[in-house]
């Protein structure tokens, strides 16, 4: 009886999991077959065909795309962490009418979808010569990730007992020294969540990159992949290989650091 009961649970779980990820399986199968192979996408090839990967790498200039994505993501993460931890400290520790207003202002920015500002943002970036530059896209990513990450830090710092600061202040430390020596070291767990949330958002971004990175040499991964599919009559098997390569880094990181990824989404959701 008991075995039968857990059997349907296992079955149901397996079915839902399979439906959620079988497109990845199909894409892997496609990527391992030559374009001339007309067999069903369900059937894995008897002998895997690897030139798709080489082709995707050279034709799609994936090396450049990987590098661009890594640079943009790394710079964005560093800035997001520094700017949001800094911004959250006075907002958490110095309660004043001004700071309540600033907090509300930041919360309201959270409700502005970046895409709704496409036209004026694009015009602004053209104007300041930020189109197809690292700094242009990085500043955009940082700006639109900051409201959420500031709130994560804000809530976290609020939960740190003030006795900690006051002890240090009595010892003669300045408010900045308290931040640097007392608060900052305690921020590690929330910083992990911030890095994951901002990192995944920037690494996966398509909509901002589509507008603000137009020079071919500045393409990030999502743009490189979509350009494979946009060309009609293009080699879909090569496109599949490119897609598979693009999702490898994040999949590996996720499997290795699963606990932190789940914590990240919970931190952002239950703020």
């Amino acid at each position: 009886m008991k075995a039968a009961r857990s059997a349907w649970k296992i079955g149901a779980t397996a079915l839902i999991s399979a439906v959620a990820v079988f497109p990845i399986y199909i894409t892997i199968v496609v990527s391992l077959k030559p374009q001339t192979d007309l067999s069903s996408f369900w059937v894995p090839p008897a002998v895997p065909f690897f030139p798709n990967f080489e082709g995707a790498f050279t034709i799609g200039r994936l090396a450049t795309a990987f590098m661009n994505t890594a640079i943009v993501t790394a710079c964005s993460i560093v800035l997001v962490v520094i700017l949001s931890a800094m911004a959250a400290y006075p907002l958490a520790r110095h309660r004043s009418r001004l700071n309540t207003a600033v907090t509300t202002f930041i919360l309201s920015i959270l409700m502005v979808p970046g895409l709704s500002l496409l036209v004026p943002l694009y015009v602004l970036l053209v104007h300041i010569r930020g189109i197809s530059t690292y700094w242009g896209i990085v500043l955009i990513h940082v700006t639109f990730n900051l409201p959420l990450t500031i709130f994560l830090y804000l809530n976290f710092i609020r939960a740190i007992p003030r006795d900690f600061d006051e002890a240090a202040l009595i010892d003669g430390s300045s408010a900045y020294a308290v931040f640097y020596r007392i608060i900052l070291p305690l921020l590690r767990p929330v910083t992990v969540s911030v890095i994951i949330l901002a990192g995944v958002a920037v690494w996966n971004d398509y909509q901002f990159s589509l507008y603000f990175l137009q020079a071919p040499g500045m393409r990030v991964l999502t743009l490189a992949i979509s350009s494979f599919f946009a060309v009609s009559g293009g080699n879909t098997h090569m496109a599949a290989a490119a897609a598979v390569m693009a999702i490898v880094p994040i999949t590996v990181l996720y499997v290795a650091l699963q606990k932190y990824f789940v914590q990240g989404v919970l931190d952002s959701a239950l703020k």
Partner: protein
Amino acid sequence: MKSTFGKTNIMYLPALALFLVFVVYPFVEGIRIAFTNWNGFSQHFKYVGLTNFSVLLGDRNVRTALLNTLLYGFGSTLLQQALGLAYALLLNQKFKGRTIGRTITYLPVLISAVIMGYMWYFVLQYDGALNDVITLFGGKKVLWLSRGGTAIALIIAVNTLQYLGISMIIYLAGLQNIPEMYYEAAHLDGARTWRRFAGITLPLLYPAILTSVTINLIGGLKLFDVIRALTGGGPGYATHSLATLLNATYFGSQRAGYAAAVGILLFCTIFVFTIITQGVSRRGEIQY
């Protein structure tokens, strides 16, 4: 003590500067551009008053896109709550494989939506995996993405499956926060499964439900990547959301003034529903 921390206010100035330059200024600029007939690059343009907005109200493509945006938003949100909650209830029980199930279902959340969309394209294309199954059972191949209605349903399904993991994780955390003793008490009272669910689980999950609904709804109303990957807004304008239409209007038709007006419509749509969900959550907090 207050003044000690007061001077640290300068630490939020860099963040505020970014918000002013890249959110507030474009926001105001967007409203100004929406009152012009600017094409996006010319030096010459005229202020045309509310013309863009009155054209917007009568534009069939905009109406379709607005309706689709709501369909994407509410369709995915409903499905994600129903499936996510059911799945979380399942995974909250002890059996072998539940951890793996959770891990696998959450994976798509971390994959870029546009890449996930292209992966689904291998399933849905004419020579794709889905039609292989249909022909295996003697059916005829279907052009899945060539009809507006079907394509919209499929886009909702793809979006739902990709982000099912978010609602599942939120509900699972919510379920694990419900103290076991409530269920034990209900069990002693002889409450049946359904009564326990309606009487204990659902009310105590209220905060989790609101969180999950808000995240899914806003994500659905902003839908862009999946549409670009699967249909590009087509056939015709049938599957455009406001977000993809805005892009097509600006870069495709070079009507910057009009596109800015579409942007304001998109902002207002999302703003209205964010305010509503927040209002509901405030009322809920008072009840407890």
